[in-house]
């Protein structure tokens, strides 16, 4: 086996582009395809690699019925429970499929959830009926996202054409 650093590099490459094949990674890192494949298998087995997804720029999908959906950040204040702290409440929240992300936060509130719904009303309904009725939740503040500029390091606009001339010496 090669240095663990190279193994990390496998993850770095895949995190940026999951379509790169094991063969190609092997070439890039000067390893055998077999070693790369087995490293990836192990990462998958251990759950380090959770899954492979595609980054879709929904800002470019303009459908009339608003099928691209709306997203809201919801600040949740929680009265922590003895022994388990925030874990119970967090678990109650993150199992909802509407909840896309869920974080424990420092600061003036405790849990941040990112919720996606078909419409404004849809999200509002989820907050009032489901989220705020969970035990130990003391209050919520909902912020709807109006426009996304950048997400997880990707700028959400059409890729720009390269401005460099095709041949320079």
């Amino acid at each position, binding site marked *: 086996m090669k240095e663990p650093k190279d193994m990390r590099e496998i993850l770095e490459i895949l995190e940026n582009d999951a379509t790169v094949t094991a063969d190609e990674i092997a070439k890039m890192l000067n390893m055998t395809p077999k070693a790369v494949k087995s490293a990836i298998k192990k990462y998958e087995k251990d759950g380090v690699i959770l899954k492979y997804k595609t980054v879709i720029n929904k800002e470019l999908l303009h459908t009339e019925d608003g099928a691209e959906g709306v997203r809201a950040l919801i600040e949740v204040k929680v009265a922590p429970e003895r022994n388990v702290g925030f874990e119970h409440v967090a678990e109650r929240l993150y199992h909802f499929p509407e909840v896309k992300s869920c974080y424990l936060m420092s600061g003036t509130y405790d849990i941040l959830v990112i919720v996606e719904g078909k419409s404004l009303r849809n999200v509002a309904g989820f907050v009032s009926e489901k989220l705020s009725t969970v035990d130990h939740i003391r209050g919520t503040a909902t912020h709807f996202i109006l426009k996304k500029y950048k997400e997880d390091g990707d700028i959400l606009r059409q890729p720009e054409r390269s401005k*460099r001339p*095709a*041949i320079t010496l």
Partner: protein
Amino acid sequence: MQGVMKISKIVENMPPSGIRVFFDLVVGMKDVISLGVGEPDFVTPWHVRESAIYAIEKGYTSYTSNKGLPEFRQAISKYLKHKHGLDYDPEEEILITVGVSEGYDLALRALLNRGDEVLVPEPQYVAYGPIVELVGGKAVYIKTELSEGFKITPREIEKNCGKRTRGLVLNYPNNPTGKSYTRKELLEIARVARKHDLVIISDEIYCDLTYDFEHTSFPSLPGMRERTIYLNGFSKSFAMTGWRVGYACGPKEIIAAMNKVHQYTMLCASIISQMAAMEALKNGEQPVNEMKREYKRRREFVIARLNEIGLACHKPEGAFYAFPSIKSTGLSSMEFAQKLLKEEKVAVVPGTAFGKTCEDHVRMCYASSFENLREAMKRIERFLKRRKQKND
């Protein structure tokens, strides 16, 4: 067609760029994957661009001193000390230039008398020979061999040294071969330089892109500082080609002479570019390292693929070019480039752009996205297979 204006004999006799035709062909074509560029595909890191915007907002729009902003020269002096162990006085031994191109031009103008000779290893970056001729000198080309990893050997240098030989142009890591030199190899060149009293014009613009060993700066070698004109800049390491900012370092007499020409021809480098480059020096190390890592991976990928598909290619030690041999195809480098462009829409640079002796090679720049490189290699593979079938 004879116009009213007669062109100077020197310019008329300068070797015309034989590959102009090819360039024009590429420009007129759509959806080309270009491996023909000589610059990073990254845009300048945002913190650098942002500092230029700030400089403009704050009204930094004037000339600077001829030599460049004093604090910028100080920053370069510190950087060179820290990074390469070089000791240059920011007041008298550093000159900010409009890219290494200007620094190189100034160096030769300050150095040469009519008829003086300069040794230029081939393959060469396109400007080296012509500028020597432009200032009235004579370029003596020395072919470097693939079998030697395109290394310029002391033997070859000595063989070409004559009474009028003033200097040797070194460029490492090299454009287009990617050859770089270890300290040991450089010490051998230094020995010959001393013996034949040569001035070394050392263009180290790709120094940060050395992948397999530490870069050794030529003037850092014992006794070489006094006979080296050190040229460097921001274009390659910091992805700042369009900013046109570089620097020349050397003993104060030569820098003063170069500055004399510089103040008449260029006055100074753009203040905005100088401000931006200062920011690059201050906070640019991380982006540079990230780009380097990325280039290294691309290098490994491209070289492995080229050899796999049947274009023999040595592993370049630095820069971001592959310089494979196309001898097996039986095509001239121009034919290869033209056919590849026409049939598969991949642009590469014919070897002859880098000297008459480079007919067996083409230059492919791997400073391009992985997707581009992957697709380009696929197309080149298809191109080669088709040719092989035709020939069989």
